[in-house]
């Protein structure tokens, strides 16, 4: 499972970085989104991977059988904040598209 998760994070991050370096704002925002997925998965798995383990304490279960709840709390916060800032970026992107008439990140399209 570790290998699959590592591969998934790697592929997401690589595609995100590639798209981020592209000249169109749409590609940039998709790239940022993919990158934030990769980061969120990364935070999620930093506490160690366990299947079927509970993060919330229950009576009569040994402490060794729990998953670390803190990364899960962190990733929730990170998802919410990432979502909000991406939405904000989307608004700016639309404003830029409306003002300049194209979706190049510099506001100028190189092609005639």
């Amino acid at each position, binding site marked *: 499972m570790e290998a699959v998760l590592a591969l998934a994070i790697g592929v997401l991050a690589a595609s995100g970085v590639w798209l981020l370096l592209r000249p169109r704002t749409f590609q940039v925002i998709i790239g*940022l989104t993919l990158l934030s997925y990769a980061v969120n998965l990364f935070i999620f798995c930093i506490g160690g991977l366990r299947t079927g383990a509970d993060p919330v304490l229950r009576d009569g279960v040994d402490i060794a059988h729990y998953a670390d709840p803190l990364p899960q709390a962190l990733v929730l916060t990170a998802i919410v904040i990432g979502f909000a800032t991406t939405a904000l970026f989307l608004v*700016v992107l639309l404003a830029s598209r409306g003002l300049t008439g194209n979706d190049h*990140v510099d506001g100028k399209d190189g092609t005639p």
Partner: protein
Amino acid sequence: MSAHLLVLPIVLPLLAAALQWLLGERRRRLATALSALSCTGLVVLAGVLVAAVADGDLAVTYRIGGWPARFGIVLVADRLSALMLLLTSVLSLALLPCALGRWQAAGGSVQSLFQFLLMGLNGAFLTGDLFNLFVFFEVLLAASYGLALHRPGVRRVSGGLHYIAVNLLASMLFLIGVSLIFGVTGTLNMAALARLIPAVPDNTRALLHAGAAILGVAFLVKAAMWPLGFWLPRTYAAAAAPVAAMFAIMTKVGVYVLLRLGRLLFGDGAGPASAHFGADWLLWGGAATVLVGVAGILGARELGKLAGYNVLISSGSLLGAIGLQQGAVIAGTLAYLVISTLGIAAFFLLAGMLAPHEETEAPPLLEPYDPAGDALYADEDETRATLPAPVALLGACFMLCAVLLAGLPPLSGFLAKLALLAPMLDAGHGATMLFTLIVAAGLGTVIAMCRTGIQIFWADEHWVFPPIRAGEAASVLILLGLCLALTVLPDAPLRYLEATARDLHAPWRYIDAVLP
């Protein structure tokens, strides 16, 4: 002093912002009163905090929800935090007249964004928890996106687009760094981290260093170190004058965090494997930033860009001085941080007053060679009379700004630079290099400012001086007056800064205060 006071610098602007949002566009006067109340309250609070930590032995801590510090979030005000709080609140209060004059037409939402920005800044200075720091960074960044794009035009939107993209990427790096550090140590409390780092086993220490380095990159983007700071001059030049002036402190947030975490986590007590981790990078990166800043101010053709490259010089000098890791340099570093923030803020305001065409697409360039452009200016000259007194005021303020930023005697800019440079003389090769660069940067600033001043005030008879709004003049005069006051009364502030530097050199006081 009650420890509950510590949460007020965050809650007060939050409340003001929320109320202003509810008031909406209609009750502008009430929103303005709320802004004034909140900013004044913040100055008072910061003053109380500074007074509380100036003579006391311990940092003031506040545990949110009463949780023990390792599990809950803790707010800490030691001398450094209190100093930054005071600087932020004083800057915001000084900018208020200018911002209100300009935003009277813009309604309550801009004012509440300004308050949200203050909340994020105060939170970032107070928090003792890495993930909480991330949250406050996002708060202040989200507010700054809104402010940077206030009344958008093509120039502002495309500058803002780069700014947001770069900062979103930096936030991801922040998260990766934080989670790596959490993965190695199992805590995000700064004081607990400082205790754990000397004992980290060698096989995971590399991972810890990688996390810290990635985290550092995120802060260096904020502090605009070369080559991570290309977004800065463009965004700052495109932003409205009071916004750009407030942004002068945002690069200092990055510098503050690097200073705090560098001394706390990778200070002398971090064990031989981790002590002074990354210091060389800061030193050489800071030096490169100063170089880029000097090249920038010498080549800048807009006042806004000139101010933006001044930010780079200040940032680079601070980063390089932090990279030296010398206790003696830190007091001077802090003095330079305060004076350069105030001076640059005043200069951004002044740039806005001299080039009021900010709503149009292209601000006037400093070298109007184009004859057609000259004719345009001449036309405007006939319609708009310029009074000699405001021009004299502008010229005097410009000269004061130039003297402050270049660090010439007799103003406080010189005192700060002296305090920064004097201990560098006997601190090794890197220090000599940085010393030379900072002195050369001062020379470059003098040349660039002289050239600009001569062009605007003496040579260019077609330059149209706009009518001065009282609020803008008041803001500039307050900021410059503060710098003048620090020139006349440097003793008590310098003693405070030296005590702060001693604190930073002995981080166990901070650690013991947070984790008793």
